[in-house]
């Protein structure tokens, strides 16, 4: 009796391990989209627990048009490019800025959306962009984001002395601006709009110098065929009335 129960436990544990391992390398025929589950309205998890957002809808439409299967996989943003290169995911359609640094690592589709990078401060704050960049000021942003790379390379390394605070998600950074613990957050205009829609008392004080960035889907360098598929899909999508429908649905403009 005792032995049996011990064996049962061993069996269950083995099954769990196998199951876990299995899920890690199953589903090879499906293209996995790694996305930031905390970047509304582009990509997030909806009330029912399913991936949702502008990019998710767009990819689903493209997949249907171009006849491939797609699965959306929430992935930690700071590790998303390594994950793509390592083959844990097959592409990234998640409001990703096209930057030279990233282009050195992966290929991007043609741009499908342009965002403005802004400094966001508390609603009642009397701060200018210039003041936000003064020594001792704290600017929050998403860990591993294009903003963090740009601010480090073009500001901090050029002698600016403000402090960068890194957050796991964009909403957490904006939240902390509202909390008054950091002076500003460097985010895109869409992220700001989303936060304001949720009632956060924040406002934009304008661009901080980073050129407006284009969003594109990222694919591994060697997957040229798939890149073509995605580009073609994007072109079709933009030409179809569904594109305007999407923009309206996610209230993008």
């Amino acid at each position, binding site marked *: 009796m005792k032995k049996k129960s011990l064996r049962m436990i061993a069996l269950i544990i083995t099954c769990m391990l196998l199951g876990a391992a299995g899920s890690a390398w199953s589903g090879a025929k499906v293209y996995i989209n790694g996305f930031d589950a905390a970047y509304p309205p582009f990509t997030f998890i909806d*009330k029912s627990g399913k991936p949702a957002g502008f990019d998710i809808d767009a990819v689903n439409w493209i997949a249907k048009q171009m006849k491939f299967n797609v699965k959306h996989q929430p992935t930690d943003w700071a*590790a998303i490019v*390594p994950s793509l290169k390592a083959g844990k995911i097959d592409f990234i359609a998640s409001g990703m800025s096209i930057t030279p640094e990233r282009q050195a690592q992966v290929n991007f589709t043609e741009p499908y959306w342009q965002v403005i990078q802004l400094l966001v401060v508390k609603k009642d704050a009397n701060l200018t962009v210039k003041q936000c960049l003064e020594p001792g000021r704290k600017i929050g942003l998403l860990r591993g984001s294009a903003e963090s790379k740009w601010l480090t390379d073009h500001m901090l390394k050029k002698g600016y002395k403000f402090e960068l605070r890194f957050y796991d998600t964009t909403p957490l950074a904006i939240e902390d601006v509202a909390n008054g613990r950091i002076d500003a957050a460097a985010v895109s205009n869409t992220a700001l709009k989303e936060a304001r829609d949720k009632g956060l008392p924040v406002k934009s004080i304008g661009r901080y110098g980073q050129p407006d960035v284009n969003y594109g889907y990222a694919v591994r360098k060697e997957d040229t065929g798939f890149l073509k598929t995605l580009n073609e899909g994007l072109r079709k999508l933009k030409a179809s009335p569904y594109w305007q429908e999407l923009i309206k649905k996610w209230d993008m403009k």
Partner: protein
Amino acid sequence: MIGNGWKEALEGLPYILQGTWVTLAVVFGALALGLVLGLVLAVGHVYGKPAVRRGIGLYVWFFRGIPLLVLLFLFYFGILGALKLELSPFVVAIIVLGLISSAYQSQIIRGAIKSLPEGQMKAARAIGMSDRQAIVFTILPQALRLAIPGWSNEYTVILKDSAVTYALGVAELMTRAHHVAARTYQHFWLYILVGIIFMVLTFCGTRAMAMIEKKVAIKGYSR
């Protein structure tokens, strides 16, 4: 902000709860890996040659002295990157938590072995068993029973530590809470919710362990 926030947070519960399976898979995967390695390490630590013992001591010192978060980063970004091993955060979480747990479990089992009367080994040899047989058939069956309370504790530790794997984006409870938070901005309630889920898992786990302990108990081997 506090008003109806909890309702919105609660709507995210089903999605967060799916993370329970991920959390439990990580925890039990790590415990199983830790048990297998820990057993070998413990036996080596008690019965091995001095060099083996020193090696095991070093291993235990290493994995007990470095924070989980640092080990997660070291393995996920560092070692596995250098080895060109492409493992998902989920698997890395199991491996790292398992290695840490093996260091602790080896100490639990070692303590249990050492608490057995010395006569047990002698008696086993006296009836003609080899050392290996003596360990497998007389020492370990007793020691493993004595180790159950220690494991119960180890379960609660690993369970709570598993929340840290959020740093790699493993889709466990904490990660999922943040997914919901990105949509609802209800951080306060979501953290409370996740904490309570962890408490329930702790409670159920320790209860189950106590039941197992009772099941395999022999007179004289109770707590």
